[in-house]
């Protein structure tokens, strides 16, 4: 099994290096195909591992080599494949394989084709390290690795100012959060003396509650950054500047779920501190609603999906925070499938519409893009949580968790958000695929994507439909390592009322969305309609003015402060000191240049002067050596 573990881990790296070889050469198909095939190898290996674990195999734990061993600190490059990580591996390798094959078509005309695959495979490698590591240090490496690749890929079209800005924003926000995470890891090492998951968690039982709370908080700050939770959420929407496959892979299916994975992985810790868990759940519920509300009015196709991702991450955190780790992981998995599908569909639409992102300028595309239409609709249905699609099983489960745990406020918020989710998803679908063909006004001739791209997406479609049916298998597998709490509403009547009520609510929301946006009366908004001038619309479409606030009250003062420091401290103190030293040397050179007059007589005089200098040194040292005892007493008397 170790062989499969290494295959799963290192074939993306091999693919990345292979594509990297072609980094400077013009676009070649092979630079895309080989990494994709290698990823397929990784996927197959992951599948074999999954089958092995499912059939009751013990977890695979390998120690590739020692990384650090100093004193009490011992950190190996250790990898573990247990029920949790194999789930993540499956998700990561499957989605990334699909995205790789899809990208061969999507990036077909891009100059940076080879570079793209190099980055993308490097990302998958980092993500694999993140999920497979058996200690916090390895996790952190993967964590930083995915951050780096995310930065590279968001800023992939680096000639665009907005892309570089978004890349930097994402990276800086993640850095802020990573500092928190690092502190958390330090705290863990400080208090438990180990970074290995099993040892560290075993040692936590005997620790102070307060210390554990801090650990949980700091680790969660790290998770907040990666998973774009409030208030570090702004980067995710801006990250949509990257190519769409990147958004599908990194900013929907895998990387942003790393925070959820961390909380799930650290479940023994969060079990000990339920109050932090409650905070996580509350924040998750808030973000779910918050993001969904922003998605309601947005006019950028990719941003809408990004907000929906944010909202779904909120759901996952609710589950994880309430101790239903397996539910969180299950939703993570299901969400990865349909959200990646949704993004890839959006990519197809973008391609067809020549990178137009405003769904109001589309409409009626279902006639020309049948495949994409079907896929996106089904993905949206899954996202909305209609029976029997994947979203129903995972998302309704989270609602049930909230209800069963008696957190009715969270439950209500989530229920409301589910309605919003359905509404904005189908608003998007309706605007893109139904109604009048508004794109004709803009002279665009849409066309369906390559066949093989659609074929590449089909595994995701399949899983988005049937993933729910794996629920029990999954539950039995994953609860070997996670707390096996089953969430059942006590009375059957309540359960049926809840389920059917939710379904009806969601269906109503969908119907409303269709009614409002699928007709022929939809016009391209021009800022004059009544709705657009309402205060709440403005607040929502400006993302609650949070980016504005960050810009005005954080970035600008920081910039001013930096300018101040630059002008006052760096230029006037640091630079002046360095320049002063250089100036002294220069001027002394100027002055002593007179010495080198070439006149031998002058030189002789200088020679004598030098002799005197040396003689005086001899006298001084002689005296110092002779009276060293006295000098020491005097110095010690002075307190030196």
């Amino acid at each position, binding site marked *: 099994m170790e062989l499969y573990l290494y295959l799963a881990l290192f074939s993306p790296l091999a693919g990345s290096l292979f594509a990297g070889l072609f980094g400077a050469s013009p676009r070649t198909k092979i630079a895309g195909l080989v990494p994709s095939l290698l990823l397929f190898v990784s996927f197959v290996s992951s599948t074999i591992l999954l089958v092995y674990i499912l059939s009751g195999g013990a977890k695979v734990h390998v120690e590739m080599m020692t990384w650090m061993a100093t004193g009490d600190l011992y950190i190996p490059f250790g990898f573990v494949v247990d029920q949790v990580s194999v789930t993540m591996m499956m998700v990561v390798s499957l989605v990334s394989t699909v995205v790789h094959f899809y990208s061969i078509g999507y990036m077909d005309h891009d100059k940076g084709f080879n570079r793209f695959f190099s980055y993308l495979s490097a990302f998958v490698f980092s993500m694999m390290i993140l999920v497979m590591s058996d200690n916090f240090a390895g996790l952190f490496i993967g964590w930083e690795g995915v951050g780096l690749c995310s930065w590279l890929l968001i800023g992939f079209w680096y000639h665009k100012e907005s892309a570089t800005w978004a890349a930097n924003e994402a990276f800086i926000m993640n850095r802020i959060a990573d500092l928190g995470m690092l502190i958390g890891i330090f705290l863990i090492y400080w208090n438990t003396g180990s970074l290995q998951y099993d040892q560290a968690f075993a040692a936590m039982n005997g620790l102070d509650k307060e210390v554990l709370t801090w650990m949980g908080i700091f680790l969660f700050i790290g998770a907040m950054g990666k998973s774009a939770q409030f208030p570090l959420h702004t980067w995710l929407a801006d990250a949509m500047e990257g190519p769409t496959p990147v958004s599908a892979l990194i900013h929907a299916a895998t990387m942003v779920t790393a925070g959820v994975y961390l909380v799930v992985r650290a479940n023994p810790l969060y079990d000990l501190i339920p109050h932090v868990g409650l905070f996580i759940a509350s924040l998750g519920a808030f973000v779910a609603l918050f993001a969904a509300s922003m998605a309601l009015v947005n006019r950028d196709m990719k941003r809408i999906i990004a907000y929906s991702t944010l909202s779904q991450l909120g759901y996952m955190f609710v589950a994880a925070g309430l101790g239903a780790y397996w539910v969180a992981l299950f939703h993570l998995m299901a969400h990865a499938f349909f959200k990646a599908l949704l993004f890839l569909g959006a990519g197809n639409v973008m391609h067809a519409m020549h990178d137009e992102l405003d769904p109001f300028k589309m409409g009626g595309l279902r006639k020309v893009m049948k495949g994409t239409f079907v896929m996106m609709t089904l993905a949206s249905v899954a996202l909305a949580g209609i029976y029997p699609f994947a979203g129903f099983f995972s998302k309704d489960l989270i609602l049930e968790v909230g209800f069963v745990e008696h957190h009715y406020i969270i439950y209500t918020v989530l229920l409301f958000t589910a309605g919003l989710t359905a509404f904005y998803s189908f608003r998007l679908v309706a605007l893109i695929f139904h109604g009048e063909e508004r794109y004709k006004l803009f002279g665009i001739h849409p066309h369906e994507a390559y066949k093989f791209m659609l074929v590449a997406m089909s595994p995701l479609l399949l899983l988005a439909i049937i993933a729910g049916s794996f629920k029990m298998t999954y539950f039995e597998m994953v609860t070997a390592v996670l707390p096996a709490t089953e969430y059942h509403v006590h009375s059957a009547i309540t359960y049926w009322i809840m389920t059917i009520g939710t379904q009806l609510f969601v269906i109503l929301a969908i119907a409303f969305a269709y009614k409002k946006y699928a007709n022929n009366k939809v016009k391209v908004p021009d800022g004059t309609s009544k709705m657009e001038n309402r205060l709440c619309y403005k607040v929502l479409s400006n993302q609650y003015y949070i980016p504005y606030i960050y810009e005005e009250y954080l970035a600008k003062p920081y910039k001013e402060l930096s300018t101040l420091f630059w002008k006052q401290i760096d230029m006037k103190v640091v630079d002046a000191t360095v320049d002063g030293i250089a100036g002294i040397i220069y001027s002394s050179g100027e002055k002593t*240049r007179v010495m*080198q*007059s*070439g*006149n*031998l*007589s002058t*030189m*002789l*005089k200088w020679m*004598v002067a030098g002799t005197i200098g040396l003689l005086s040194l001899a006298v001084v040292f002689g005296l110092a050596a002779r009276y060293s005892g006295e000098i020491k007493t005097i110095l010690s008397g002075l307190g030196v």
Partner: protein
Amino acid sequence: MEIGLNHYLVLSTLLFAIGLIGVMRRKNLLLLFFATEILLNSVNIAFAAISHYYGDLTGQLFVFFVIAIAASEVAVGLGLLIVWHKRHGNIDLDNMSTMRG
């Protein structure tokens, strides 16, 4: 009154200082050579005196070698002076400034 080592050393230093004065103020190269001879001789006195007072012959041997070196210095130095004089017609130190940087 007993004459000790320090007497000789002080004398040596005195002569050395005189030699230094000569080295620094002479412009005529030939006379500058005189001053260097004084320097060498002052050191010789110190060597001989130390040799005597410590009962060690090494000092005298050094004097011996110093005299040999002084002799060769004079030979080579005078040769160079002659070449210089042939070329420039004088042996003034201030005219030798080809080493100006």
